[in-house]
């Protein structure tokens, strides 16, 4: 990131820029980006929303689209820990998303009618049956439970490497949806409500205590006309925390161990890095963010449904990581934002635009996964380091610090 910025600054300004301490060169653009993001609902409402006929994209992403985009970016950043940092190809990340979403379903809805448990839930009538825990606490619980799921999946499988690991994760990614689909009758116990899904799930809120504070914080997001904005700010806060953790993790002892494993597993082991423990940490932490994002998304959509958790989502997230540059946090954020936006409304809008403006009757949104496929293939063939490569990763790719290649694998 800093390198790219550094180069783009030309002339005197560029020289001045380069004289700034490295920290400032990272923080200034980051601050600008964060400010732009924080102010988005404001300038969207007052300025961008007026454009309803923008060429190609028709309109600027609405605030509710932005929420979904952020949720997917959080997941991609989580996946980046597993794939990018530790070099473990995970084709079943959707399983973590599902676990997170269902945790929200279990802890913040009327699903378990047998009991009535309320814990700090905001704006939920005390008369309602079911478990209603405050959604903020649920997010944390979802993260922890998903991390636990990551460890459980990881322990038996992480001693495999490379493509076998990828297939095993894919297997888990396929089993979890089957499980939630059929989990309405586990020996007579209804755990997941089957194809009906758990619906509705509680919204976060500020509760009675803060009701009306600062000019009208609502008790519950759902009953407010600014629901979308509230969800947006909360999501943005989650994203910032995720990014912060992700960047710090990379620089930490653990993060360096991951990168060592990614570059050469055998050498890393020889240097005394505990392979299993380090890899399991990558799984658990990657899963943690997937779980939080899944739970938050379930709360935003107010439901969790088995048909949402399919393989394509795993590939979609992988595509964000590949496009952005494996291991590069800023790359993943950039690519994730673009792809998630395309997924939610971009492609559909482009299709509508083409239909309106050209004789071409091509439903772009229908072929979204084909388009992601093309992106993946082109990136792997021509720019395997991604759009915004991580410096170290780039060196690996170019100078050939690598595990056995397909050809070298003849044993």
């Amino acid at each position: 990131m800093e390198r790219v910025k550094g180069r783009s600054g030309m002339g005197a300004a560029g020289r001045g820029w380069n004289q700034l301490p490295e920290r400032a060169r990272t923080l200034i653009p980051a601050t600008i980006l964060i400010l732009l993001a924080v102010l988005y609902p404001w300038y969207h409402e007052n300025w961008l929303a007026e454009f309803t006929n923008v060429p190609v994209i028709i309109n600027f992403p609405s605030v509710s689209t932005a929420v979904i985009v952020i949720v997917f970016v959080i997941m991609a950043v989580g996946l980046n820990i597993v794939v990018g940092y530790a070099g473990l190809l995970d084709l079943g990340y959707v399983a973590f998303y599902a676990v997170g979403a269902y945790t929200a379903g279990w802890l913040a809805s009327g699903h378990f009618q047998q009991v009535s448990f309320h814990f700090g839930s905001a704006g939920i009538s005390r008369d309602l049956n079911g478990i209603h825990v405050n959604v903020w606490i649920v997010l944390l619980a979802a993260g922890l439970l998903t991390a636990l799921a990551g460890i459980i999946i990881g322990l038996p499988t992480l001693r495999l490497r490379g493509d076998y690991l990828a297939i095993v994760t894919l297997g888990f990614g396929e089993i979890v949806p089957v499980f939630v689909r059929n989990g309405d009758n586990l020996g007579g116990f209804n755990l997941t409500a089957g194809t009906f899904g758990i619906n509705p799930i509680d919204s976060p809120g500020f509760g009675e205590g803060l009701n009306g504070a600062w000019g009208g914080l609502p008790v519950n997001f759902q009953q407010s006309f600014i629901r979308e904005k509230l969800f947006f700010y909360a999501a943005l806060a989650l994203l910032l925390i995720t990014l912060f953790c992700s960047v710090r993790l990379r620089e930490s002892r653990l993060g360096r161990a991951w990168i060592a494993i990614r570059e050469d597993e055998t050498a890393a082991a020889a240097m005394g890095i505990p392979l299993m423990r380090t890899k399991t940490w990558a799984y658990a932490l990657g899963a943690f963010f997937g779980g939080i994002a899944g739970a938050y998304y379930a709360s935003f959509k107010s439901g969790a449904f088995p048909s949402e958790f399919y393989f394509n989502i795993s590939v979609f997230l992988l595509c964000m990581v590949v496009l952005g540059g494996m291991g590069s946090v800023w790359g993943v954020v950039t690519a994730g934002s673009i792809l998630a936006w395309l997924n939610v409304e971009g492609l559909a809008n482009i299709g509508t635009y083409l239909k309106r403006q050209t004789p071409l009757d091509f439903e772009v949104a229908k072929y979204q996964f084909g388009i992601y496929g093309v992106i993946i293939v082109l990136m792997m063939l021509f720019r395997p380091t991604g759009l915004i490569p991580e410096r170290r990763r780039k060196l690996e790719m170019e100078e050939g610090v690598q595990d056995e290649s397909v050809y070298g694998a003849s044993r």
Partner: protein
Amino acid sequence: MNVFFIGLTNGAVYGLVALGYTLVYGILQLINFAHGDVFALSGLVAFSVLSGKFLGITSDDSMVIIIGALLLCLILTMPLFAVGNALIELVAYRRLRTAPRLAPLITAVGVSFIVQNVGLAVYDVEFYGATELLPRSNAIEIGSFAYQWNKLIVLLIVVPLLVSLTWFVRSTRQGKAMRATAQDKDASAMMGINVNRTISVTFALAGALAAAAGLLFLLQFNMRYDTGFQLGLFAFTAAVLGGIGNLSGAVLGATIIGLIEAFNEGLRWGHPLDGAWFFPDVGAPSDWTRAVIFGILIAILVFRPEGLLGERTAEGT
């Protein structure tokens, strides 16, 4: 007994697809994700060839014409997909031979989506099937056991294909080159084997087998653009179960998977007579087929990555 033969027939189709995985893995150590989708696309193309504008075969035509049309269809689609699959290798995988190992795998996932979307673009989300083309009358009937024509034809096509494939790999020059390349590419190249051509031939073979499987599947079941993903995974499981890289292992694994599927769906595990003493009541067993098969996949990879017939490789442990 009937259930057994349903399983065997399904297993035969999985086997053809599983062979494609195993051939490619044997030579490149690459899990060719796109293979299942190539299979599905070939089935859809076979539908176009058989029906409508091209041949326009209906079940009212005489048996001779139908069988002739099926053979003609095979003659058309097998070379077509052989070339197609070889082209995929040329365009998408060849450049990545020296790249880190995960690069071609990720590319394969991408190619899989592209092939799937070609199917989606041409055939939309409709289901297609030519299940009524062959008579469903019983070919063999002994007591309560019956075997229908439309199933028999699967075995009638699969068995000769397997025999000729075995002959090809064992006895021809090209087959020997393939085995040599699988063992050691550098050494083979030094011995004067054209490695690139050998790999292309392998992909072509896999594509041709997939096309045959596509037609056979079409005769039994409805299929649409995304049928190949799940079936491909089943077939891949079969290949792993049998020991990936091992030809007879793939066929054995596929048979086992087919049988597991059929028995899981055809018997009443939850029923007092069939197994309630052992299995808890978890709803209809057929709902769990996919979970069972992927569970097997995981268990095999974790505990016996070399499969039933394979040799231990460094992939495990």
